[in-house]
């Protein structure tokens, strides 16, 4: 499963000067499509928090963070700040996924579809793995059932490879399971 958004840990600090020999080191975890964008985002956020810019700062480390247990399902809560046509808003969204990158990707696509927010207008404030008891949204809580059972109601049979796809078919499809 290849994800568009990767999680990076970026560490940087302002350059040491005569007044400040050992400036404070700051670490951020953020999502970007590649390392270059991650470093740029780091400076963007750091500028808003401290009086430091990329020209008088240095990048100390940038590492990609991978999912520790991609084979277990987790409930992710994502706090975000986004820009709509009329102003900035905060939001809390929940997703069920195996990896945090997958949850973040779900969030970006859902924000784009439901609120028409493009990804550069979204800032992830915080993410957390939520235990099932503390989930707030009904749409995630409905899957917290150890004896979950439901039929697949609509079954469209696809050709097994895209090569066998044809524009015209001889008969109408049978959509019952």
């Amino acid at each position, binding site marked *: 499963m290849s994800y568009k958004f990767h999680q990076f840990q970026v560490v940087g600090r302002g350059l040491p000067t005569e007044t400040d020999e050992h400036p404070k080191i700051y670490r951020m975890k953020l999502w970007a499509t590649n390392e270059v964008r991650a470093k740029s985002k780091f400076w963007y956020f750091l500028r808003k928090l401290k009086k430091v810019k990329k020209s008088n700062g240095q990048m100390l480390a940038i590492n990609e963070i991978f999912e520790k247990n991609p084979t277990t399902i987790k409930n992710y809560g994502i706090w975000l700040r986004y820009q709509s046509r009329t102003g900035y808003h905060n939001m809390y969204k929940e997703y069920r996924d195996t990896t945090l990158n997958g949850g973040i990707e779900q969030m970006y696509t859902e924000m784009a579809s439901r609120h028409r927010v493009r990804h550069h207008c979204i800032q992830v404030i915080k993410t957390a793995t939520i235990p099932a008891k503390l989930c707030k949204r009904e*749409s995630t809580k409905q899957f917290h059932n*150890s004896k*979950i059972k*439901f039929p697949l109601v609509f079954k469209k049979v*696809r050709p097994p490879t895209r090569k066998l796809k044809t524009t015209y078919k001889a008969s109408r499809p049978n959509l*019952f*399971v």
Partner: protein
Amino acid sequence: MPFKRYVEVGRIALVNYGKDYGKLVVIVDVIDQNRALVDAPDMVRGQMNFKRLTLTDIKIDIKRVPNKKTLVAALEAADVKNKWESSSWGRKLIVQKKRASLNDFDRFKIMLAKIKKAGVVRQELAKLKKETTA
């Protein structure tokens, strides 16, 4: 018509699209409305969209998210492989695979066998015709 095949923990499904096409997998957990956590003895546990799965009639008795050893043991205990290969769906797939992997000599042998079988059937038919007209 009520539904008979449900998405549930332990349902065996056939993968009908993608890299693992043709494999039998077990639904180990449900992620959300469109995806399931899926496992098989010879693959890493991963997520799969329901669009890529076709449910079968076979269901094994496992708890939600078993570890690999328990899963393999449960598959052995339920004898999924034999049940699948003796079901009409499973047998059809085996025949399809066999037919796709024939070489020219095999097809020649099949041609001779078909002619022979048709000849025997026609002899019997001729005998029956003679009896009814006679």
